[in-house]
């Protein structure tokens, strides 16, 4: 298993979650309380994704050919 500094979620999963939140904001009338909560969630996701990009490493595993 590759080391995932993002916890149990993959970068792709975080990216998908972020897209979902951003789509929600696009969707017209938004409730302010929800908007605040989602904003904080999104900010956290972005932080995790940036950390992943800056710290994770690629891992090469040689299988017996």
């Amino acid at each position, binding site marked *: 298993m590759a080391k995932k500094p993002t916890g149990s979620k993959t970068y*792709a999963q975080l990216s998908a979650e972020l897209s979902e939140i*951003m789509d929600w904001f696009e969707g017209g009338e938004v409730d*302010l309380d929800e908007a605040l909560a989602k904003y904080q969630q*999104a900010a956290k996701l972005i932080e995790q994704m940036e950390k992943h*990009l800056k*710290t994770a490493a690629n891992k090469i*595993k040689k299988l017996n050919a």
Partner: protein
Amino acid sequence: MQDVILTPSDFVALLNQTLEFAYPAVSIEGELSNFRISKNRWVYFDLKDEQASVPFFGTVYMLPGPLQDGLMVRAVGSPRLHARFGFTLNLQSLVPVGEGALKKAAELLRAKLTAEGLFAPERKRFLPPIPERVGLVTAANSAAYADFVKILNERWSGVEVLLSDVYVQGDQAPGQIVEAIEMLNRLSNLPEVIVITRGGGSAEDLAAFNDERVVRAVAASRVPTLVAVGHEVDFSLAELAADVRASTPSNAAQLLVPDRAAELAHLDAKRQTLKRDLASAYDGAVMELVNRRDALVSQITNVLNAQSQQLQSLRRLIKLFDPQAALKRGYAIIRKGSKIVSSIDQVKIGDHLNLQVQDGTISAKALTKSPKLRAESSRL
């Protein structure tokens, strides 16, 4: 040796023993002739030059692709004397040699596989944009491998690369490449992409990537494939069969993963967008409140206006009933004592009466009285 009497079977066994010892395998290059396939399984052909011709026997699974007489090929085989059918070489591997033969063989194979639909664009699958687990089939000590890994590391993080180290040229290459692809497809935790790559080289160096077994393995892969053969002009058939083709190993890494710098910039942009969205949401909420307040104020104003109008109407109405207005018009209020006289029956002749007019009162005495006649009033 002549003194030893052998049976034919003995001789065959003896000779084969010697052959096995002296020539376990030989490589012969020559012109293909009498090439035929029997029952879709057995392959027979001769390799010849100007003077000699040597027979070979093998199975279709050893063929690199469709072949035809006249092609120059290199066959590896073990010479044997068959008990009944005479001398032959048991085929181990067979490849076309020389640019001409390789090109011809590739053409034959391309035609065959195109007819089968192996290269059809509808078969191509998309690669996942952010893969985490990829298979890599290449020669581990090669520049191709080094280039691929270097660009991969530059561009992205967190990828697990499952490396299958294989020969990418030579007789053993096709078999090893096929086995590597199939093995990666059998993993319980499948990779998301299989990258098969090598650097540039001569037509002979690249022959494995035009080998029918390799091309079929690429086409049959459950996992989407990315094939990169560093070769400028023609595409190898393995590249045509792949889901995605890259021009070089470095290009393969570029197509496989996003660019870290670009992604960080995107994330920053998304952060700004979110801030704006939040501000919008806030403004929206404020606007909503303002609208509601305005609507309320409007409603209240309407109600007040309506009431005010009603009040005006009532005032006017009341004015009509104002006795002072009547007095101004010349009417008088007649009182007997404190009581207001509204009928002649209330008054006797000689009564003292008070007449209130608009600017004062007049004392009067009743002199006569007469009722109003109905006929008169109707005439008016």
